[in-house]
C-alpha cells in the first residue's frame, strides 16, 4: 500500500469514528466531520451537476447548433436557449430590483412538475394498482390448485383475495375526508387503520435487518482494512 492510500485509509477511519461519536453526544469531533461532509459534498454535487448537466446539455447543444441542428432525441438544439434564459432569470434574484423575474422560471418548474406528476401518479399509483386489485372474492377455480392442508390450506384457498379487497377498500375509507369517522363508516375506517398498521409494522420489520447489514459493512471496514493497516504501515 503506498503512502497516499494509507493516509486515505486513516482519514476514512477517523471520519468514521467521528461520525459514530454522535451517538454518545454532540461533540467537536462530530462537528468537524459534519463540516467536512457539508463542504465536500456541496462541492462534489456542484461539480457533477456542472459537468454532467450544464456542459453536455446546455453548452454543447447551443454551441454545436450550427453543425447539429437537432439533438439525438430530435429536439431543436437552439431550444436550449430557452433553458439558458430561464437560468439567467433565476440568477437575477441577486439583484433586488430585478428579483421578481426569478418567479418566472419557478412558475415554469412548478407548473411542469404538476403536469408531469399528475399523469405519472395517475398511471402508476392509481390505475395500475386498481387494476391489480380487481380480484374475485373467492376464486373457485384456483382453489383446486391451492396447496396446503388443514388451516394452511384454508388460508391459501380462501383468505388471500378477500383480505386484499377488504384491506384496500377500508384503507380508502380511512382516507375519506368528507365524512366523519362515526358509526358504520367509522368502523370501516377503523378496520382500515388496522390494515395500515399491519403495513407499517411489516415495512418496519422488513427493513430492520437491511439496516443492520449497513452497520456490519462499516464494522468490516474498520476491522479488516483499517486495523491491520495500523500495523502494516505503507510501502
Amino acid at each position, binding site marked *: 500500500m503506498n503512502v497516499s492510500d494509507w493516509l486515505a485509509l486513516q482519514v476514512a477511519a477517523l471520519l468514521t469514528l467521528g461520525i459514530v461519536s454522535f451517538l454518545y453526544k454532540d461533540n467537536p469531533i462530530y462537528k468537524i466531520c459534519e463540516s467536512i461532509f457539508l463542504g465536500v459534498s456541496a462541492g462534489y454535487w456542484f461539480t457533477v451537476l456542472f459537468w454532467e448537466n450544464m456542459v453536455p446539455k446546455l453548452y454543447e447543444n447551443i454551441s454545436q447548433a450550427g453543425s447539429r441542428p437537432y439533438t439525438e432525441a430530435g429536439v431543436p438544439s437552439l431550444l436550449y436557449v430557452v433553458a439558458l434564459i430561464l437560468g439567467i432569470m433565476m440568477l437575477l434574484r441577486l439583484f433586488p430590483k430585478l428579483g421578481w423575474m426569478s418567479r418566472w422560471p419557478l412558475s415554469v*418548474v412548478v407548473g411542469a*412538475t404538476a403536469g408531469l406528476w399528475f399523469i405519472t401518479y395517475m398511471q402508476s399509483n392509481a390505475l395500475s394498482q*386498481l387494476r391489480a386489485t380487481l380480484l374475485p372474492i*373467492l376464486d373457485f377455480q384456483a382453489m383446486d390448485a391451492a396447496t396446503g392442508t388443514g388451516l394452511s390450506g384454508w388460508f391459501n384457498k380462501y383468505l388471500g383475495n378477500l383480505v386484499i379487497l377488504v384491506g384496500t377498500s377500508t384503507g380508502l375509507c380511512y382516507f375519506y375526508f368528507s365524512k366523519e369517522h362515526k358509526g358504520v363508516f367509522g368502523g370501516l375506517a377503523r378496520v382500515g387503520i388496522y390494515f395500515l398498521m399491519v403495513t407499517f409494522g411489516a415495512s418496519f420489520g422488513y427493513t430492520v435487518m437491511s439496516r443492520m447489514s449497513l452497520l456490519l459493512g462499516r464494522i468490516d471496514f474498520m476491522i479488516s482494512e483499517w486495523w491491520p493497516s495500523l500495523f502494516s504501515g505503507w510501502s
Partner: protein
Amino acid sequence: MALTLFGVVLNRTGWVWLIAGWAALAGVAIAQPADMQMWSVKAQDRPSDAGDAVQLFWSPIAPAAEFICYIVQRAPAAEGPFETIATVVSIDTQYVDAAALTGDVYFYRVAALDSVEAGAADQTTSPADSLSAASPARTVDTIYTAVAGPVNSTAQWFNLRRLNQFLVIIILSAAIIYFISQARSGKQLYVRKIAGLQAMEEAIGRATEMGRPILFLPGIHDMDDVQTIAGLTILARVARTVAEYETTLNVPVSRSLVMTTARETIKEAYAAAGRPDSYNDNMVHYVTDEQFGYVAAVDGIMMRQKPATCLYMGAFFAESLIVAETGAEIGAIQIAGTAQPAQLPFFVAACDYTLIGEELFAASAYLSGEPRQLGSLKGQDVGKVMAMCALGLGAALLTLHSLVPGWPILANMADWVGKVFQVR
C-alpha cells in the same frame, strides 16, 4: 376429376368408393408442397403513434413444422430491392417495423424459411427474381408472401389506446372543478378533522411559549417532486402562523431551487401576516445536495438549537429515521408528512403526528380553510368512491364468473371493468 376417376356409381359400394376418392384427393392436396396454397401479409400504419412504425400481420404458413422462422423484408417500391429488416421465430405471425420514417412509402413481404442458410442467401432480391402478386414462386428453401403495400406511417393527434385514461382523468378533474366551483358559490363543505393538522397551531404555540425555534424540513427532493411543492404550500401556512406568533423559524434545505422558492413563500407569508420587517433571508439556508450530509447538518442543528417543534413535510428517504429519532431525543413535538410509503413506519414510530400519504397533499387545503381548496378535497373523495365502486363491481363479476364459468358474459364484463384501468 373425382367423377372421372371413380365414375358415377350410386349403389352403396359406389358411394363408398366416391367418398374414399374425395378423401384420397384431399390427402393428396395436403401432401402437396405448401407453396401451392396462398398466404399473405397485411401491412398497416400503427395506430395512435408518432408516425414511426408500421404493423405487419401474416397468417401462419402450413405445414408450420417444416419452417423454422420468418424473415421480414422491406422495399421502397413493389419491384424491390427488398432488404431484410427482421427475423421472427416461427410461432410469431406479426411484427412492428419501428424504423419506418414518417411519410415514407414502404412495401413489405414475409418469407418463411426452412433453413438458416437459405435465409442468409436471400438477403437481397433483384427485381427479376421478385414475385408476382398472383402466384408466389417457390425458391429452394424459402416461401414468400405476396407483396403488401404501399403503406406509409403517419402520426396521429390522439392516442386512442389511452382513451380510458383520458376519460378517467376528465371525470376526476370534472369532479374536483365542480366542487371547487360549489365552494366558490358559498356552499359549506364538511371536511373531517385530521389530528396532525389540528395539532400544528398548538405545536407552534408551544415553541413560542418555550422561546425555542421551529424547525421545518421540506424534504430532500427538488422542486420537480410534487411532495416538495406540497411541503412548501404547508410552509406558507406555517410561516404565516409563525409570523403572527413572532417565533423563530429555521428552514435548512437540501436543494438550491427549494431555497429560492421557500424564501419567496415565507417572505410573502410574513407580509400577509403584517410583519414584513420580521422576515430574514437567513431563515432559509442551503446546506448540501447530499442526502446524508444534509441529515448530518440537520442533526447538528437539532442538538445545538434544540427546536421545540419539528415539522417534516415532503419527500424523505432513509434519513427520515435519523431526523425523527434525533427529534424525539431532544423532546421536540414532531409532525411529519410524506408520500413515501417506505418511510411512513419510521415517522409513525417516532413522531407525535404523521400525515399519511394523501393527507400531506390535503394539508395545505385544510390549513388554509379556504372553501375553494376544501372543495378540491371533496373531488378527491369522488375518486375514492369511484375506486371502491370499481373494486366492488369487479370483485362481484369475477366471483360470479369463477362460480359459473359457463357464462362468458360475466368474464367479458369483468374484462371491460379491467380495461377501464388499463395503462398503456
